């Protein structure tokens, strides 16, 4: 009996250490970044377009826009491919091919981001430069590469959502004479909607957080990108590129950028959580 108490105590101890270690990260980032945000002024920090660390000018607006544009573009690519593959896998794919498609997508998830970036630089960027103009290092390139990178996330969570749709829905629809595609887009997709939304949101989170691949194909200039062919710098690239040699206020500004990232991710996660909770609630109410 006493040994049980000891085990319980040990486990709780380990759990608390792990969780406090993780909480430490949040605390650290906020601790380092908030003073600078206060110094510069939150409004100026977020909305100013002047990022000149040498002159203590810290405005991250171009990077915020950059991250937004790149993420939006990535979502266009990622959702189309990811959701398309998910629907195919769950509704129309014969089992033989499922065992080809599914592992392929899982393997895509395992490829290092630097390899993605490299292929982007070597293949995609010249392609864009020759056929569409601009330097090639662009929002478009970053969107395409990121879209492929978040595809596995979107696919796997969407597959879970689609498979959770009760068979009775599908059977009811087919019994009324609907074709497979009609059933899919009128019944199944609607039923799996909140799960798919969660998948997209989580994919967004991953896209916002990606660093290495984006650095390699996005160009990293400090201008606000107007056309998809313009080069861009994202919040994550900003941190990665300058962290090595930043000090003092400059370094704290990078931490402050980290805070912005943190907040964006937390917001996205909360939305995803409420979306999936709504699904669970509806499921329980059935």
């Amino acid at each position, binding site marked *: 009996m006493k040994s049980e108490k000891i085990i319980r105590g040990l486990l709780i101890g380990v759990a608390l250490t*792990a969780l406090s270690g993780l909480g430490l990260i949040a605390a650290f980032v906020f601790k380092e970044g908030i003073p600078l945000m206060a110094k510069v002024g939150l409004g100026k920090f977020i909305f100013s377009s002047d990022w000149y660390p040498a002159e203590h000018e810290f405005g991250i607006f171009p990077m915020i826009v950059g991250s937004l544009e790149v993420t939006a573009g990535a979502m266009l690519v990622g959702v189309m491919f990811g959701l398309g593959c998910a629907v195919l896998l769950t509704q129309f794919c014969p089992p033989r091919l499922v065992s080809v498609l599914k592992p392929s997508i899982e393997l895509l998830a395992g490829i290092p981001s630097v390899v993605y970036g490299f292929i982007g630089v070597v293949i995609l960027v010249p392609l864009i430069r020759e056929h569409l103009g601009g330097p090639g290092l662009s929002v478009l390139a970053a969107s395409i590469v990121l879209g492929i990178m978040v595809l596995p996330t979107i696919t796997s969570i969407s597959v879970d959502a689609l498979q959770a749709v009760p068979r009775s829905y599908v059977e009811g629809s087919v019994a009324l004479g609907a074709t497979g595609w009609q059933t899919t887009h009128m019944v199944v997709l609607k039923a799996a909607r909140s799960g798919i939304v969660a998948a997209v949101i989580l994919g967004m989170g991953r896209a916002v957080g990606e660093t290495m691949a984006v650095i390699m194909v996005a160009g990293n200039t400090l201008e606000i990108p107007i056309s998809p062919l313009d080069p861009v710098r994202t919040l994550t690239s900003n941190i990665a590129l300058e962290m090595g040699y930043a000090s003092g206020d400059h370094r704290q500004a990078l931490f402050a950028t980290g805070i912005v990232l943190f907040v964006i991710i937390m917001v996205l996660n909360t939305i995803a959580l409420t979306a999936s909770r709504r699904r669970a609630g509806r499921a329980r109410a059935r």
Partner: protein
Amino acid sequence: MRLLPRTTQRLAVGFMWILAAVTVGVLVFIIGYILFHGLPHVTWAFLTESPRSMGREGGVLPMIVGTLLVAGLAVLIAAPVGVATAICLTEYTREGRLTAIIRFGADCLAGIPSIIFGLFGFVFFVMTLGLGFSILSGALTLALMVLPTIIRTSEEAIRAVPPAYRDVSFGLGSTRWQMVTRVVLRSALPGICTGVVLSVGRSISETAAVMLTAGSALTFPRSVFESSRTLALHFYILSREGISMPNAYATASVLILAILGINLAAYWLMRRFVAKVVV
């Protein structure tokens, strides 16, 4: 022009097949392209020598060792801690407000960009704790990075074990710990291993966090307190600085082959395990 439902279906499904084909095509292309350009250069010498003149010549032995040490150590630390935390959250505490908050926190942290972990690792492990750029700093940072994922996947695997098994175990006179280890963990093992393997893969591929914590030394690491360069980082530097394209491709090839190997091993292990423990 209204299309017949059958036609719409053919179009829609056809379009999805194109998407799937492109997806698989991209995968095959990426792997093929890298291996095509890199495999010819992956010689025994490449795998066993140290780099010379900044990587223009020589091999990647220190990088292989460095990668193994950083990733291996990270998972060695994170796996027991993560599984223990998951056990604590599911079996030893009551479901309520607190556990919901913890779970939300873990989910959030699983989504935090790796660069932020790198930031933290740089300031905390490298500077504050004085570990400097070292394999240890990198491993500790990566451990924190994969910890939320391990906790989450382990928790899900443990929850998937039917509650009735627990009743049965208690009824036969087990303590809670015996029940957890002999019944629950035994059934949850495949799921937990998936999470661990995913984390190993992620650790090996990680660049941003490693760059800021383990450094980028080209020398052979003689202890975990020395700085070292991982394969992924080496590939990044070689290609970015244009030092040596053949070597870059070769490095990437080794990296991809390692990841393919891990995925295959995990797949094969899963099939062996699942065949034994039918839930």
